[in-house]
């Protein structure tokens, strides 16, 4: 079973992701911000990471950068969750090393499709 790490400070969003992902047969682990995400990462070795951008402590950009500089994790695909359609924000996430993105609000199909596109 594939493990997906979701990083989002919003409980609602984490729950939504969990519902969609668990429903599609993924194992879901959660983190509440980037810092927490890095902790969880080492414990669970996810196949794909889905992260929010606006978060306390360590935001999505910082989190992605931290993942990408770590030799152990840099190959993990990261999908960025964003409500912002602003291309510059998406671009920044990509600069940081995001593999792809999901625009909120997402529907479960879109989400699973995005994971399929990046997960080996």
């Amino acid at each position, binding site marked *: 079973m594939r493990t997906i790490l979701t990083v989002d400070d919003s409980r*609602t969003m984490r729950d*939504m992701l969990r519902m969609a992902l668990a429903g599609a047969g993924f194992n879901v682990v959660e983190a509440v911000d980037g810092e927490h995400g890095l902790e969880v990462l080492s414990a669970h070795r996810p196949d794909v990471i889905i992260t929010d951008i606006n978060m306390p402590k360590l935001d999505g950009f910082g989190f992605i950068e931290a993942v990408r500089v770590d030799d152990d994790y840099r190959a993990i695909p990261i999908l960025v969750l964003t409500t912002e*359609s*602003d*291309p510059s924000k998406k671009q920044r996430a990509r600069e940081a090393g995001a593999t792809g993105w999901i625009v909120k609000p997402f529907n479960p199909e*879109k989400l699973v499709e995005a994971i399929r596109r990046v997960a080996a």
Partner: protein
Amino acid sequence: MDELEAIKVTFFQECEELLADLEGGLLAMQEGVGDIETVNAVFRAVHSIKGGAGAFGLEPLVRFAHVFETLLDAVRSGEVPNTVDLAAVMLRASDVLADHVSAARGLGDVDMAASAAMADELKAWTDPSAAPPPAAVAAETVDAPPPAPVAADPDALDDDDLGFDFQPMTISIDAQAADAELIPTNVWTVSIRPKSDLYRKANETALLLRELSRLGPIVATMDDSALPTLEFLDAEAAYVTWSVRVETDDGEEAIREVFEFVDGDCELDIVRGEAPVEAALANLLSAIEPPAPQAAVQAAPEPVAEPAPVASAPEPVAEAPPPVVAAAPAAVAAAPAAAAPAKVTQADVPGPGQSVIRVDPERIDRLIDLVGELVINQAMLAQRVGEYGIAPSSNLAMGLDELEQLTREIQDSVMAIRAQPVKSVFQRMPRLVREVANMTGKQARLVMDGENTEVDKTVIERLSDPITHMLRNAIDHGLESPEERRAAGKNPEGVVRLAALHRSGRIVIEVQDDGKGINRERVFSIAVKKGLISPDVQLTDEEIDNLIFLPGFSTADKISDVSGRGVGMDVVKRSVQALGGRISITSRPGLGSTFTLSLPLTLAVLDGMVVDVAGETLVVPLAAIVESLRPKAEEVRPLGPVGSVLAVRDSFVPLIDVGLALGYRNTSPSPTEGVVLLVEGEDGSRAALVADAIHGQRQVVIKSLEQNYQQVEGVAAATILGDGRVALILDVDAVINLRRRESPRPTEPSLIAAE
């Protein structure tokens, strides 16, 4: 959809927290102590509300949140200065946002006109001239100060924000179109030349090919050698070029979408048909040596990167500006990220690493019940052992002592599970204060203390009303108008302090104002005028102050819809007493008043006095008992045909035989043979309850009578004593009222007893 409904519940809970964070942050900003992290937190709160609302399609909420978020984003980027005035506006906006949340929840309506006006006010801050649509401006402000061409159409942006559309993709097809009619329309040739960035972002060519194959049969060619199966593809082999023949009816758009995530990270050429591609591919290939991927890795990036902008014609227009500005926002973001750990949160919200278990409250209630049983059982056991006359130094007795200790600890720990900081109630109050101050034309600043004081959830839920009343009263009646305050040499802005603290096993809530204090002469004359006291009573200052808790007392000249909303402080007092609490007021003329409310930490247990009445064991709530005494014969005075009163110091208090009041017996023994509990009822009236004997104080676990039976007049609830039998907990007020209904209403001696 049960799960979705459950998430919706979570969402609204989270909204409450986010709204509180929002308000807290805005208040800090208004105080001038909001740093960049405060602004970020405030932004995130609105952002998260909007995000969740979007997921549930709560349109009006999303729209208002969007405008709010836009302004906050501008503040965050420094485009709109973070001022105290702005914070005040945003505080009002947060109230409107809270209304939207409530409305979305089905609780109440939003004044849409007010909301629209508020939205306009917010928009005016980001864009006073209102030239470009505010939404577009703000969306740009964070990352790209010079307006980018992307967001020219505000509607498009809005849709983007709510929906799922990605950025515009400009499709540029070269001259191949000319050949289109010559070849099958469903055959496409896709040339891909990944850049190293593609792999750096954990994208893989193999996955792209797999995605392409979902559109239709593909034939992928790497270099000029065939790639028979995907499994043999080396994902790390960068700087090779693939040519893929795709047969699909989905069209170019679908093909392009496959490459959405790698846009810019690879050179992509999509052409209809097969023939022209061979040439194009050959062209691309000429830049690289045939399959020597390992060797190419180091050398390739430079030459490949250079021609990129030229070769990748299909790169969307919108993508062009970002690389230029990308560096700046990165720096901006780094600052808050670094500042973050320094942030001191008052909230008890568990941080990362701290895990939270969500438990059905019913399970906790059940656990609390069971622990209650354990306490009772332990007490029973101790009582039995005591009856056998076992020496306190024996192993058995000592073991029992340890059991008692353990039991208490378990009880405390279990109660702690249900304990919550009063914050959840407190955080609703700043808005109330703002509203009441606005309505009454007062200037009020709320200062809160001890928000993290914990108390049982069952108590928390019932704190809100009394606190609301006390605050309303403090502002409406306590604080003077700004003019009066100035005239009195005070700061025109009054201060109302709301504090929570633990004191001797109870929670104490204080509401203090620095207003004019209680006008005792007026209070006294009103009480006389309303027939609540006789004009010739001598009352202490404190007694006069506490007259405001008498039923039907209202000091307002005109009936204000602010304070008490038609109900007086007597209602507050009654609801507080129903919880086993007490409320009082102290006042200093010209300096202000303080309401003090004290409540038990839990409603699951009660401190009671165990008494015997007509062979029955009863528990009298300690909160109602002023004192217990053994009356002397000369203190008992008959009054009327059957009644009698007890002389307590200088006053007379009606004597009530509990056994008679509850119907346990038909005649009451002489009060001098029993014990008298001087109690105070909800309306401040006093009575002397006669019982046969007192067994002492005990903490008892409250059991519902209604669960299996129904309410019984004169009985508040039941409990189980150490002997395993049920004992009833007396409803002191009801007993006083029972007596009143049965005998003609006495004169007011009870009030005089106030001390």
